[in-house]
């Protein structure tokens, strides 16, 4: 033992007169470090109530609960996390996983209350003094537990695809699909946004676990056009995807395509199509064999009704065939998908135009119920001088021709008027037909364009040029060229649709010389058959229905799809077809008949 060991206890006495290290009351609060993990904060405007925090919490400390002033809406469940601090261990996994980045932790850690119930509260909702703290723990990009990057779809290079109508997207391979599927959080916020409410997280899970047969079955529960939708769906689901808030949304559409691609050769076997279906009394006539009509046919066959589809063309598919070009949806794909629907035993009468070849009244007498799904097949014309000059085409008719296999010569310079998906299909088809220069004239700006961003982007890649805030006013023919007089626009006050109204700028007229003009400015419904059975139509020419049941004013006649909605996308038509099947069954079966009537 050294001398130091003996003396050291006495050294302590030298501290006798120093300021003590104990803490005085009232306690002087010491602020936590800048990134201290204290009580939670939540930006409730940013939070979408996806419940991923609840899912990851190892202590089951988080519940998703409704909040009075937050309403459930598209992309937001209206629920907000409530944390039980009797269970929370401040591990911050909930913060590190949060897809929107709304959840964080303040650096406040000193708080006490004698009421145990107060230890359960909703961050960001309940008033706490740290509610708006900026300091504390926040998720960093490195610590984020999610993968914000999309697995890219392999596509044909723009220079190659400009010269061919072949499909431009090659489809995911196994490893890509698994990788993309593993990004999904299964929160299900997307299900609400899908018009037909597909069980998206369930089929993505099936891909992840390589149960593609189950995946296909899940698709057909809600959508018999899954293969087409896997290619051309407008994907409202992806608009609300939780991952889309801080990264790329899951490529839900491509994952759906992956399932149908991989199971195509055994589709009927997997789905049990061809097995005897139940038989119910009653026949249903379906007018128009597009996505709405054929979806209704598929589900009505499953109910056990005899179904006859009346189709004015010699092929089925409606807008999927005549409106969407081959490079986005190959006809062979559409054909095999429709074949699956027909294999349930649907009868089809081709080349029958209801209203002309047979009246709506006659069909009404022939069937127990009718579903009108004729779509919006007439291209809108612009009321300008020279619109019927040869060389001025209507977008829908042009696409129709291409679908029939015709390849018209458009010349070198083509002007496409319009800003919707049809305009994109038209301009991109024009490129493929060999036009050297293709211009899209749109009277508003790119921000107002109704076309999907992806479509616009791809059109640009293919060399399509855009002229915004411009509209044609007069077309004349000089020699073999078209002279189009145009005027510049500026945006004024928002109109009824919420988009800002374009106003012509006086004196801004100019003239463009082109070979062809294609008008793709809108579609109209031909509802002339309606009066044959006293069915009401709206002043826009669409069929008027009870929005709940899709029944028109005439009992037993239902309408859905574009002819009821006005021009819209395939997935809305499919949703309508499914709903119509349900209410037609309710109508036909005795008990349900009352249900549909009392609605």
């Amino acid at each position, binding site marked *: 033992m050294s001398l130091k060991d003996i003396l050291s206890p006495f050294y302590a006495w030298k501290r006798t007169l120093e300021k003590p290290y104990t803490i005085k009351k009232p306690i002087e609060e010491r602020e936590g470090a800048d990134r201290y993990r204290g009580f939670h904060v939540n930006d409730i405007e940013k939070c979408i*109530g996806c419940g991923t925090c609840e899912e990851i919490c190892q202590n089951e400390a988080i519940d998703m609960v*409704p909040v009075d002033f937050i309403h459930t809406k598209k992309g937001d469940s209206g*629920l907000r996390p409530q944390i039980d601090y009797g269970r929370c261990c401040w591990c911050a996994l909930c913060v590190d996983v949060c897809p929107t980045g709304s959840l964080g932790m303040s650096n406040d850690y000193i708080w006490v209350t004698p009421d145990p119930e107060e230890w359960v509260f909703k961050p960001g909702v309940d008033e706490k003094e740290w509610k708006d703290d900026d300091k504390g723990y926040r998720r960093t990009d490195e610590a984020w537990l999610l993968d914000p990057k999309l697995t890219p779809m392999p596509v044909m290079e723009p220079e190659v695809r400009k010269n061919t109508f072949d499909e431009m997207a090659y489809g995911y391979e196994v490893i890509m699909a698994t990788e993309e599927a593993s990004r999904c959080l299964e929160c*299900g916020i997307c299900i*609400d946004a899908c018009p037909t*409410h597909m069980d998206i997280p369930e089929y993505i899970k099936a891909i992840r676990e390589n149960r593609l047969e189950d995946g296909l079955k899940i698709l057909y529960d809600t959508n018999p056009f899954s293969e087409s939708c896997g290619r051309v769906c407008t994907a409202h689901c992806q608009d609300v995807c939780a991952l889309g808030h801080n990264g790329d949304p899951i490529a839900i559409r491509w994952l759906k395509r992956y399932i149908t691609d991989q199971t195509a050769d055994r589709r009927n076997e997997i789905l049990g199509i061809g*097995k005897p279906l139940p038989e119910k009394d009653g026949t249903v006539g379906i007018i128009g064999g597009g996505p709405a009509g054929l979806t209704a046919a598929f589900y009505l066959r499953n109910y056990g009704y005899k179904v006859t589809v009346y189709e004015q063309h010699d092929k089925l598919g409606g807008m999927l065939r005549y409106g969407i070009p081959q490079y986005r949806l190959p006809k062979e794909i559409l054909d095999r998908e429709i074949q699956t629907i027909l294999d349930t035993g649907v009868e089809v009468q081709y080349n029958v135009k209801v209203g002309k070849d047979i009246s709506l009244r006659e069909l009404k007498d022939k069937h127990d119920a009718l579903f009108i799904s004729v779509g919006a097949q007439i291209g809108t014309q612009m009321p300008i001088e020279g619109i019927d000059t040869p060389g001025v085409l209507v977008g829908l008719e042009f696409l129709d021709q291409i679908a029939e296999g015709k390849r018209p010569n458009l010349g070198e310079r083509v002007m496409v008027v319009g800003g919707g998906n049809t305009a994109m299909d038209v301009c991109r088809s024009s490129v493929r037909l060999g036009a050297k220069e293709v211009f899209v004239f749109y009277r508003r700006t790119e921000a107002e364009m109704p076309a999907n961003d992806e479509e616009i982007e791809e059109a640009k890649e293919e060399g399509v040029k855009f002229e915004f805030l411009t509209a044609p006013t007069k077309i004349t023919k000089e020699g073999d060229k078209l002279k189009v007089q145009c005027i510049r626009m500026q945006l004024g006050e928002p109109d009824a649709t919420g988009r800002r109204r374009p106003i012509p700028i006086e004196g801004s007229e100019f003239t463009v010389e082109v070979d062809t003009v294609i008008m793709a400015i809108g579609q109209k419904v031909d509802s002339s058959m309606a009066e044959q059975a006293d069915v009401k139509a709206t002043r826009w020419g669409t069929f008027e229905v009870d929005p*709940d049941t899709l029944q028109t004013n005439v009992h037993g006649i239902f309408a859905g799809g574009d002819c009821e909605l006005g021009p819209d996308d395939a997935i809305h038509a499919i949703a309508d077809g499914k709903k119509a099947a*349900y209410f037609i069954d309710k109508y036909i079966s005795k008990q349900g008949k009352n249900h549909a009537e009392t609605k």
Partner: protein
Amino acid sequence: MEEILKRLDERFYVREKKQQRPNLLFVTVDKKVAVEAVTYLRDYEGFRHLVMISAVDYIEQNLFQLTYLLHNYQLHSDIGVRVFIDREHPVMDSIHHLWAAAQVYQREIKEMFGIDFPGSPRVDEPMILEGWDNIPPMRKDFDTKKYAEETYFPREGRFTLDPIKQMEKKNYPLEAEVKYEIKRVVRDNRDKK
């Protein structure tokens, strides 16, 4: 350390060794020579300080592993002496005669893993688990969640809602009804023999 390892191996036969850092070595020796090895390290090699005793449950191999971590003040080095014992007969010789502090570790290991150290003072008395009536809680076959659910009651008034169901209820109750019935009809037909 290499010298020490060599001498240790000659005397007690080191089954496995792992040089974690220049001044941290782990050795595995047989159960029957473990206390001798620890004694030797303390009295001949200067590892005078018992840092701790720890245990791991290797349930898959039906073994417990004990680690005696010893420190040498002169060398500023540590040796962990590891020993595997049969999980079915979890008994180990006590080392409380070498370090009085060992009795605390041994009492704790007895309580948490059920490994007995006969002769160690107060080894059978509970340390923190008064009135414990279950298998020792640090054993891998102890289901913490199940125990918690059976023993404690959840906080009253807590409930949670599923975002998917909430959106169905609030945004599209009718369409949800349509969806579930159609789904049922389609599945009935498909899964029929």
